[in-house]
């Protein structure tokens, strides 16, 4: 039997394999304590990362992470696992690049193989307008020290030979924004790695624990009520996605968030042939090949607000048609499954992070279509905000008060494919 605190390593794998015993659970279950120093609502990558960095960087270990379902069952398990930092605003570029940096070293940091595959990220331009935005993004990126450049169709063809770069198509490829540090990662492994590492530092992870109310006295948060009992806590962090407005409403905090489903699909596995992430804003689609060989297709958000997580046939038909416009050679491939996740869209396509008018109630919400790639930096900066009781510079542009002040961080041109 491996010691629970033992590290995963080649030696532990061999000795454990030879003993043929069950692997111990990666994290424990606990009874609910009556009080915690910090309660994090939402057991996805954001909530778990926040708890992990609270314990690791700031020594705050009396922390509970509550999830109404299972860890990583929401947006963390439903995204398309693409990582990149080639955003449009300096605030966005800095923020997402810090996340990419943390992702690069995450496997060693968490002692968990998160399978980060740095393979290059291509955003295709099919018209002059998007080519102009690509140039703009490339220059903003270069100023921040990010490897990002505009390339021509011949270079695109070299990187991804299966793309139809001819001018015979409905939307010919005029060029692309090429971002070599981008890539994909095993999203479930990121959740499990953070969960295991947080558990080892003493954080309590409570699954099937649904928050039913948040107690606020004199504009100050005092605790939460759950289906397993009440918890008193001076600090409550909303790290949910999809249901974030329902949680914020419990504390009496209104946020400019609307929930839209985003649908995705995956094909049967084939041999590796696609060695870059390919995104097309015009065709509302992004494609990557996982380490298992499946092609993952993602789309833009559905055209109306909804909490439904059911996929639809008209969606896969449209998605498949768009993928075939890019790569006609895939016409014989079969789809294995499709699903939907919920995206909390904000007016400027940037998140809402930090304090609220209710003292002790923190927000880490509004993660639209870009939440997963921001997981590590969000956890790190939310932990810092809570521990130091001040807003870190890197998230200062993302406060809830920016909407009243009119200081929006417009990322629509770089954060999603749905425009």
């Amino acid at each position, binding site marked *: 039997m491996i010691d629970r605190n033992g590290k995963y390593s080649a030696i532990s794998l061999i000795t454990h394999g030879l003993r043929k015993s069950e692997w111990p659970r990666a994290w424990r279950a606990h009874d609910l304590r009556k009080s915690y120093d910090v309660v994090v609502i939402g057991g996805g990558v954001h909530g778990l990362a926040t708890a992990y960095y609270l314990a690791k960087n700031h020594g705050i270990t009396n922390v509970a992470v509550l999830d109404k379902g299972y860890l990583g069952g929401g947006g963390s398990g439903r995204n398309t696992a693409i990582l990149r930092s080639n955003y449009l605003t300096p605030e966005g570029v800095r923020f997402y690049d810090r996340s990419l940096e943390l992702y690069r070293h995450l496997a060693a940091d968490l002692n968990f193989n998160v399978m980060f595959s740095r393979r290059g990220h291509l955003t295709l331009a099919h018209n002059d307008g998007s080519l102009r935005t690509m140039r703009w993004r490339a220059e903003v990126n270069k100023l921040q020290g990010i490897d990002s450049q505009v390339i021509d169709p011949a270079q695109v063809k070299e990187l991804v030979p299966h793309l139809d770069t001819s001018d015979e198509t409905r939307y010919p490829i005029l060029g692309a924004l090429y971002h070599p540090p981008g890539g994909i990662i095993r999203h479930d492994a990121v959740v499990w790695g953070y969960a295991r590492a947080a558990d080892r530092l003493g954080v309590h992870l409570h699954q099937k624990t649904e928050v039913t109310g948040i107690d606020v006295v004199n504009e100050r948060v005092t605790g939460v009520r759950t289906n397993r009992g009440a918890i008193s806590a001076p600090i409550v962090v909303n790290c949910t996605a999809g249901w974030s407005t329902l949680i914020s409403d419990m504390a009496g905090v209104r946020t400019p968030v609307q929930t839209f489903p985003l649908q995705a699909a995956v094909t049967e596995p084939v041999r590796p042939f696609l060695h870059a992430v390919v995104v097309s804003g015009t065709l509302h689609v992004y494609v990557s090949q996982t380490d298992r060989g499946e092609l993952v297709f993602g789309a833009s958000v559905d055209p109306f607000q*909804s909490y439904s997580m059911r996929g639809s046939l008209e969606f896969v038909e449209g998605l498949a048609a768009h993928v075939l416009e890019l790569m006609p050679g895939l016409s014989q491939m079969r789809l294995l499954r499709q699903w939907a996740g919920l995206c909390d869209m904000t007016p400027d396509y940037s998140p809402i992070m930090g304090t609220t008018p209710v003292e002790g109630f923190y927000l880490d919400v509004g993660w639209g279509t870009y939440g997963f790639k921001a997981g590590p930096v969000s956890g790190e900066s939310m932990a810092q905000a809570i521990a130091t009781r001040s807003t870190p510079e890197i998230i200062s542009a993302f406060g809830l008060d920016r*909407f009243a002040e009119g200081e929006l961080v417009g990322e629509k041109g770089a954060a999603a494919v749905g425009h």
Partner: protein
Amino acid sequence: MIELPCPWCGPRGVSEFRYVGEGATRPDPATATPQEWRAYLYLHENARGWVRENWYHTAGCRRFFKLERETESNETRAAT
């Protein structure tokens, strides 16, 4: 496909329509505070459950109408 009950054309597939969303009353520009503008521009109920909302029949009668929809199941019914 989800069907929407257009009061003029009858039940039609959702892809014929454009989502307009929750209605909101525009505050008076002369007297509104920044907070009121923020609420008008950006805040939505984003309710889970039955809502009353506006749609536009783009590929049909090209008229606006009100509709009731359950936002988790996407069940719809004519607005009463």
